[in-house]
């Protein structure tokens, strides 16, 4: 098991907190958008954009980059926030989310913002696209290519049949260069996933489709980093990482509540959220309140 240096973990924690604050600010300003998913996946995306990914924010078209395919496009406030904080565009631009003329469309649009690999929003299509990219790269570079295709999925979208069409093809083609990450936060718009449409056993499902499956704590930087390292070392199969996350993580009144799937905080709620994030949930004394 690789060990993340304490400084690295501290750096990632700070970055993730900045990213969460940006998400709250963006959503308050936009007056619409999704809260729970972006906050819940903030640790993972921070880990990817500041530690795992091979990418160049100043040259988003760099051919050698890893590819991030965001299938559940509605958590794009998070994607935009980590992109801005890692240098793709100015952090101030985050305030334009969902506004007329903004590059930060309500759901991501590939053509509007460099660094977005595919437009998404309608659920269930991302894994197919990631499979296609991974197949194409293998046609060109063979099985020794070190480029990875990371597809982020929500757990709710696993209701879509298309995901399983893609899972079958990924298993059939033994795409070692394809790594899926499921945000297993157990909520979707109408309620808890196991009430709406039971998904378990997710491990069993993907294993039976020919995937290597890893379960990991989605808020543990080291756990997720280790999961990705393990996935990269699997040569005969694609890997699905089931990341257990808390929706709304970091803001107590949002945590675990499906009601916060698709709505933004009000100005007052936003202030409270920012206070909690500044003080890390009361663990440190608030500054400049």
């Amino acid at each position, binding site marked *: 098991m690789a060990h993340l240096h304490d400084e690295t973990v501290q750096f990632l924690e700070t970055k993730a907190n900045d990213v969460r604050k940006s998400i709250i600010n963006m959503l308050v300003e936009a007056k619409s958008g999704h809260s729970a998913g972006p906050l819940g996946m903030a640790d993972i995306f921070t880990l990817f954009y500041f530690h795992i990914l091979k990418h160049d924010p100043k040259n988003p078209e760099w051919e050698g980059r890893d590819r991030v395919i965001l299938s559940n496009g509605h958590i794009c406030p998070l994607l935009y926030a980590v992109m801005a904080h890692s240098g793709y565009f100015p952090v101030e631009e985050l305030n334009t989310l969902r506004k007329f003329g903004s590059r930060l469309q309500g759901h991501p649009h590939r053509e509007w913002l460099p660094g977005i690999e595919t437009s998404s929003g309608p659920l269930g299509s991302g894994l197919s696209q990631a499979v296609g990219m991974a197949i194409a790269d293998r046609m060109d570079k063979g099985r020794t290519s070190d480029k990875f295709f990371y597809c982020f999925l929500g757990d709710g979208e696993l209701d879509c049949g*298309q995901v399983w069409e893609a899972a079958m093809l990924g298993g059939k083609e033994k795409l070692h260069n394809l790594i899926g990450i499921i945000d297993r936060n157990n909520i979707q718009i109408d309620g808890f996933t196991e009430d709406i449409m039971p998904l378990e056993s997710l491990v069993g499902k993907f294993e039976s489709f020919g995937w290597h499956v890893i379960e990991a704590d989605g808020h543990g930087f080291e756990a997720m980093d280790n999961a990705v390292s393990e996935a990269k070392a699997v040569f005969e199969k694609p890997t699905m990482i089931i990341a257990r996350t808390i929706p709304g993580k970091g803001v107590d009144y949002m945590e675990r509540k499906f009601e916060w799937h698709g709505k933004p905080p009000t100005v007052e709620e936003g202030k409270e959220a920012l206070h909690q994030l500044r003080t890390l949930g009361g663990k440190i004394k608030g500054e400049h309140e």
Partner: protein
Amino acid sequence: MLNENQKLNPRLLEKDVEQAPIRFGYGEGLLKAGEENEKVVALCADLTDSTKTSTFSNKFPERFVQVGIGEQSMASVASGMAAMGKVPFIASYAMFSPGRNWEQIRTTICYNNSNVKIAGAHAGVSVGPDGGTHQAIEDIAIMRVIPRMTVVVPCDSVEAKKATYAAATTKGPFYLRFAREATPIVTTEESPFEVGKANLLRNPENPQVAIIACGSLVYNAIMAAEELAKEGIECSVLNNHTVKPMDKNSVVSVSKEAGAVVTVEEHQVMGGMGSAVAEILAKEVPTPMEFVGVQDLFGQSGEPNELVEEYGMGVKKIIEAVKRVLKRN
């Protein structure tokens, strides 16, 4: 009064004119494109032979992806491959692709501006005995309504080969529509073909009606025009193979010259090629029109010719439509 410049099949008007399924041209065009450009790849959803994807996949198995019966995923897989620089062609029956995977085509191909080519085989009632479930007669409508989509409906296998090759060498989403049955060969290798440029196949002096047709019914349109000429009614015939972007200049010019129009397509009259012609004419040069096509009905089992007659697209019905529109002019 066939247009000599079109270099049509010299045996076109003979009873035993050569025939070939239009989809054969897809296989040939795909193979040609694949031989010239190694980025051309093909995907199929368990219909490799009947869509003629096999012409390509037999030669280039390493550039072929068999996705199984999963048309929705196939569209998005192709989008992903295009994002990596490939030129993917996806094929199935039109009923399933684009019939079943419309949203994936809209979002992951067109909204993404992805360089994917969609081949819909077995379109129209002429699919025959398989019956109404398998007869796509709505596909032109649902494809032409999506921004950025180019829609081409070739009239024979020779034109299908050219259209497929053109799709491979033109950037952007394409929908190519093919019929199943053996169809008379109207054009030749030498006939002009350009996406977005309709071909005037019949150009009599002083035509009274312009017949604007696409796909397998171009042949019927020509036969109807020949019959009508014997009765002293002269019709021009425009092969309007590119439904989108439509050749507005040609459509307006033949309509203006004749003063009356009949559109002919193996598709619902709502939303198809004829509707697209009407959208142009209503604005540019309002002209009396008749629409030959399926009149808001589903198909059924039967022999292809029987069904084309039953659903009002045979030569006699085209002749009747011409006479009806003449009365209104």
